[in-house]
């Protein structure tokens, strides 16, 4: 293929789009809506997963020492805990700090008769992998001087189960929506080609090779995909701004953020649109090329 042919084929693609305006509009809006729905689902699923991850990250193990344990003993235990795998952070709380905190929370406690500090030394453990919480807690229970270990086992198990469900729903939802979007988009492209099947046949009859027919139509598919994806991104930006304004007013949703950078979202949508547009055209044209 020489340069002037390549130029001609690109020109053909854009003339085709211009002169089939209504079909082009139909294809582009179909692509925009399909990718918009897919993108919205990805954003929500991403946000939900992040929200749950942040909740899991807040889980701590609380260790209470025996009443007579000294600060020295407590520090030794804390050092041992820090050496356990998947422990992120260990903090020793002194009796005095805890007592001060407790008094702040319960200002009447002294007048109620509790004058002396009854609290033991305590250690807060943060873990890197929430699924290891129980086994870490069990190890700590066996250490000398440790009285009680609270690991919030049941709450954690529940939220971990929820996380699995949310992740499963997200992944399968994305897969289903992706397949549906591909199907809808290639169907829309098939329709535009069906409207032009006569044209394709004539091209073949005057001696056009399959590639000569194909290239402008594939370029059209790519352009439709890119424009549709861009429109989907614009819709998501507008919709996202509205939703986050609403969500900010709901206190329990404060941590529900979807911070996928807008540029990454735009690029992946456009890449997806281009790939679906090109393959959709390529696959659909085959049917019409084989007629003669």
């Amino acid at each position: 293929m020489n340069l002037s042919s390549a130029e001609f084929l690109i020109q053909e693609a854009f003339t085709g789009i211009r002169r089939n305006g209504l079909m082009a509009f139909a294809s582009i809006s179909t692509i925009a809506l399909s990718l918009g729905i897919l993108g919205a689902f990805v954003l929500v699923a991403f946000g939900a997963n992040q929200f749950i991850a942040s909740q899991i990250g807040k889980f701590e193990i609380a260790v209470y020492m025996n009443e007579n344990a000294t600060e020295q003993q407590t520090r030794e235990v804390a050092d041992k805990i820090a050496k356990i795998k998947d422990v992120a952070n260990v903090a020793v709380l002194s009796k005095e700090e805890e007592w001060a905190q407790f008094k702040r929370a319960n200002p009447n406690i002294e007048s109620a008769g509790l004058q002396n500090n009854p609290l033991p030394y305590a250690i807060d453990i943060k873990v890197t992998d929430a699924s290891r919480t129980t086994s870490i807690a069990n190890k700590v229970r066996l250490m000398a001087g440790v009285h009680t270990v609270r690991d919030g086992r049941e709450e954690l198990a529940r939220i971990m189960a929820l996380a699995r469900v949310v992740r499963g729903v997200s992944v399968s939802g994305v897969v289903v929506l992706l397949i549906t979007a591909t199907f809808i988009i290639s169907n829309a492209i098939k329709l535009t080609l069906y409207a032009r099947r006569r044209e394709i046949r004539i091209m073949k009859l005057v001696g056009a090779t399959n590639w000569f027919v194909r290239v402008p139509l594939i370029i059209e598919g790519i352009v439709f995909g890119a424009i549709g994806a861009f429109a989907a991104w614009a819709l998501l930006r507008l919709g996202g701004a509205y939703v986050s304004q609403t969500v900010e007013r709901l206190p329990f949703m404060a941590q529900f953020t979807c911070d996928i950078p807008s540029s990454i979202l735009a690029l992946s949508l456009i890449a997806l649109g281009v790939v679906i547009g090109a393959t959709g055209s390529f696959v659909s044209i085959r049917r019409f090329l084989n007629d003669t």
Partner: protein
Amino acid sequence: MISLNEVFVEYDNGVRALKDLSLTVEKGEFAFVVGSTGSGKSTLLRLLYREMSPCQGTVIVNGEDVVDMKPSDVPFLRRRLGIVFQDFKLLPQKNLWENLAFALRVIGAQPKDIRRRIGDALALVGLTHRCDAFPNQMSGGEQQRAAIARALVNNPTLLIADEPTGNLDPDTSWEIMQLLDQINIRGATVLVATHDSQIVDRMKKRVIQLDAGHLIRDEHKGAYQHIES
């Protein structure tokens, strides 16, 4: 130029369109293919540009075996032929100039040649002033001439026309025939399928008559109906 040998054609629905047809058309000839509707005229022409294949027999066009041809070679066969279709088959989204240009672009012609060749072809069919018109803006006669111009524009050695006067009034039909005659005089082999008896009688060219898929008459300087002498 064209050589068919013991050709049988059967459609998928079991209809046998051509039966044991053998036929030769020499280079530079002008021949009519006549016969009633369903006699196999269009089928015969379609074999020549490989829109369909026979179930038996050989078809040679321009020295090439069209039946055994690879699908990827078919476009190159068609580029050396000029085909005028019964329903014109102009690209509806392109104007006259672009329709002709497309046929030339397909064969890889240079823009400079394209301009010159389209100019020549449009002048020959008398449509120079209509080059901006889209097919739906042209009359039947104009579309027919446009289809002929497109068939001519790549200087084919063989021009195949299926009912080129099918939808036209007698005067316009005669003009079209004169045009095809001129193309023949310039050196192209011309094969015309028609059931326009007036035209055939007046032109006094070779007449190949088909009936129910059989070749029943092949007569030089013939008439539409065989005249017993």
